[in-house]
């Protein structure tokens, strides 16, 4: 049972990674590692900033 649950969690983590759900986590890691003085953006700010930057920097999607 535990292995099934673990497998399911692993799959959810993978899917989340593919869809970019872990972007904030990665940003925090980067922020901590690079020794910024300013506090990191909050989760809400981060996601706003992320989609707002896409407004001026669109990414193509393929046919």
């Amino acid at each position: 049972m535990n292995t099934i649950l673990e497998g399911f969690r692993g799959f959810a983590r993978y899917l989340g990674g593919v869809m970019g759900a872990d972007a904030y986590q990665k940003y925090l890691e980067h922020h901590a590692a690079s020794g910024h003085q300013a506090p990191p953006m909050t989760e809400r700010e981060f996601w706003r900033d992320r989609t707002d930057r896409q407004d001026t920097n669109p990414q193509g999607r393929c046919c």
Partner: protein
Amino acid sequence: MSSMPGGRARTTDEDLELTPDPSLPPTAVDEAVREAEESTWTPAKIAIWAAIALVGGVAWFMLAIIRGETVNAIWFVFASVCTYLIGYRFYSKVIERYITRPNDRRATPAEYKADGKDYVRTDRNVLFGHHFAAIAGAGPLVGPVIAAQMGYLPGTIWIIIGVVLAGAVQDYLVLFFSMRRGGRSLGQMAREELGVIGGTAALIATLLIMVIIVAILALVVVNALGESPWGVFSVGMTIPIALFMGVYLRFIRPGKVLEVSLIGFVLLMAAIIGGGLVADTEWGAAFFHLDKVTIAWGLIFYGFIAAILPVWLLLAPRDYLSTFMKIGVIVMLALAIIVVRPEITVPAFSEFASRENGPVFPGALFPFLFVTIACGALSGFHALISSGTTPKLIEKERQTRLIGYGGMLMESFVAIMALVAAISIDRGLYFAMNSPAALTGGTVETAATWVNSLGLAGVNLTPDLLSQTAANVGEESIVSRTGGAPTLAVGLAHIMQQFIGGTAMMAFWYHFAIMFEALFILTAVDAGTRVARFMLQDSIGNFVPKFKEHSWRPGAWLCTAVMVCAWGAVLLMGVTDPLGGINTLFPLFGIANQLLAAIALSVCLAIAARRASFKYLWIVALPLAFAAVVTITASFQKIFSPVPAVGYFANNAAFSKALADGKTEFGTAKTVAAMEAVVRNTMIQGWLSVIFVVLSIIVIITALIATSKAFRHERAGVAHKDHEDPAVPSRGYAPAGFIPTAAERELMAEWNKLPAELRLEKPAHH
């Protein structure tokens, strides 16, 4: 030629600049150890590869040589997967060794430009899925279906062999070269490598090609939704669902991407089921029964609004939904084909393989089959993705082979499955669905009579089968539902109902398929319009600087409107075309896509030449030559062919003459207005072909000049100027493939022993 440096020589040059941090373990597997690992053939390894080769060989034999009554779909899976494995293991390694020469000691942009937002080191397996979701869309689901007119074998061979030698090569090279340039776009690389003329031609060609691609994708959606209340309702519901998801992510629970995608998925299923209920009611059937022209106008207005709305509201949430669906659908389709293993009765080569008057798309097998199947075999559009987001996320240089080459193999597999789904339905049904109404007459009786009159072996279509199938999938009619999407949906419903649910579920599966294809296409339309708008803004900005300010509303809206009008005009032309739309325009889509591939490969050729890989330049030159020959031949036939069905101008002349002679109907055009429409459409399509081919020839010639210049420099001993970012030593390690090798595992263990604070990257620019 003794001055020509060998493959390894350059790597040593780089190594001089790359002084590794002595406190860290090695950032790459030792060259000699890796070489030894690769060239040692243990008995187990030999046995595995012999088995793969044997299974693949048998599968190809079953598909290509054995001429039985039927062939089982499982052979398509074996033939493709075994060929991909061999191509990946052997051919892509040749490219790696002699052309790209990745160096894991070098930091990737995700490391040296790390910003936690755009440049983020991403696990290779995750990035593989991410890249695949970005490159695969409706294209590989549509082209193979249309190409099935010629029988299954030509399409199968082109999809599988084409991807190994051309499509995956292009994706891999563009990804690698863009990564070495900090993730620069194809347009920027073209400008640097080919100079102003080549670069400008590439930019204009890219812009025009995007317009055509967006228009024809939109045409596929319109054809699938026309006169289909169920489809219109359920696809229409994706807009409020996406808006809800956008608001949820922005204001209610930011960042909960998986959660909102699950909610969106449940709502989407509800919309499909609800669509059936709504279409059954009288008001629903009346209200959502829209003709194609109305839907086309709706799509044009939608396209404009979607492209000026903020990304968070519509585009981003729908992108999540589309990615979620993409992975689910592909896994489901693969499972279903493996479990159900449908018997295929379509012949290897159909009657139309040796003719040029096929009803689904006109023209001879060479070159038109090779442009009809673009996505899945060789897709130039991928070059725009491979030189965009993905190179900024790569963790180690050696992973580009898995992500670039391997990702494209996956897309090819999707194309094969789409082909299998399309050919698993009755052949008579296939032609009744995919031939324009001008030929089938639009009713079940006329369609059956017409299909039977084609004299196709083993085809005896009854009006009953047509109306029964339509009833099963919950549509009023399936006659002349061109564009590929409905055929795939019928094929998928046919396979899936044997897997889950039986005939009662067919209508659900049909609309499920229509829904995800529409979802992929709407995402591509949105994103395509936005990208094209920015390209136009930047181009105008060279003359009117104000346009370069992307936040300047009037400029943004004006450029969006221009792009939407451009693709909207082509879309309306296709929808109202008396000749059928898809059959006249789809070749243009394929030609546009392959010309973009030729442009991308030209840029790769010039870059590879600058890196002095002359002896192995054929790896790039081969797909480039093929793409160039195919597309230029196809364009020339479209421009110069005297056969009206093939040549745009020949058709134009025929209809002009008929009008001049005072005829009131001609061929499939039954009114003077229709005849005038044909004259207008063929003229536009003809000139578009001319512009495309001229621009592409310019790009190819400038690339050849750049290549020969590099060759002369090499002989004269002049140093090559390259445009790569300076090499920075890497400070991390990750294995190259899905499964780490023994040496890679050893090195990973060494890194894992390192204290956490030493393992994290230290970006240089802060």
